[in-house]
């Protein structure tokens, strides 16, 4: 394999790691949005009392 192929593979690894991290952020975000929605519903309910 040529040097450039190794370079390509190395960079592919780097970006795979970065995108795995982005996926992680996306997961955390969806979790937070769900939590906030729940909290909002709860606060509305407590207002009704």
């Amino acid at each position: 394999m040529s040097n450039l192929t190794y370079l390509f593979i190395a960079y592919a690894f780097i970006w795979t790691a970065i995108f795995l991290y982005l996926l992680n952020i996306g997961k955390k975000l969806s979790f937070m949005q769900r939590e906030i929605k729940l909290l909002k519903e709860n606060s509305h309910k407590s207002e009704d009392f």
Partner: protein
Amino acid sequence: MDKKYLIPILLSYVAILTALYFAFLYAPTERTMGDVQRIFYFHVPSAWVSFLAFFVVCIASIAFLRTGKESWDILAASSAEIGVLFITIVLLTGPMWAKPVWNTFWTWDARLTTSFILWLIYIAYLMLRSYVHDKERGARFAAVFGIIGFLDVPIVYMSIRWWRTLHPAPVMGGKQGSGLAPEMLMTLMICLGAFTVLFATLLFLRYKTGMVATEFERLKNKIHS
């Protein structure tokens, strides 16, 4: 995980890997500059993304001043952060390419100088955002500065160009645009596309984070009151 996050992330992952393949394996090695020229495929798209990001800052700022909607302010802040990230990449990769090719890290050429001043302006923009007391007023300050900062870009570029053309121009052998091989042009286009998709994804994630943070703040105030 929510599909609205999964799809853009996967899409930009595929785009970036394709761009890497084209930049490292598909594009031919440049005859005079050698492999170092491959920096070009990441340098130019980064510059493009940073300009796009600052353009979004300007548009979002105008929209914020007109409507007063907080979401526009969040969009401007998100875009500015990503823009600063990419302009920093431009300023770091540029000298790495220039040193072996022009035999100097830096010249005060119009494009280089403008990028540098742009970096300073948007660092100032982010500092301004974090240094205000009153959040609502701070958002308006940032919007005003965001608009002037972007309008300043062509003015800075023109002024530096007039300044440089009246001086002996530094020798710059074969920069981009002049006789680019079709494979190279193709690679550049793919890299530009990939970076744009990456920008959109990052902006979306950052924007949603900002929205969650404000919602959170609102809830907190509601509970405290």
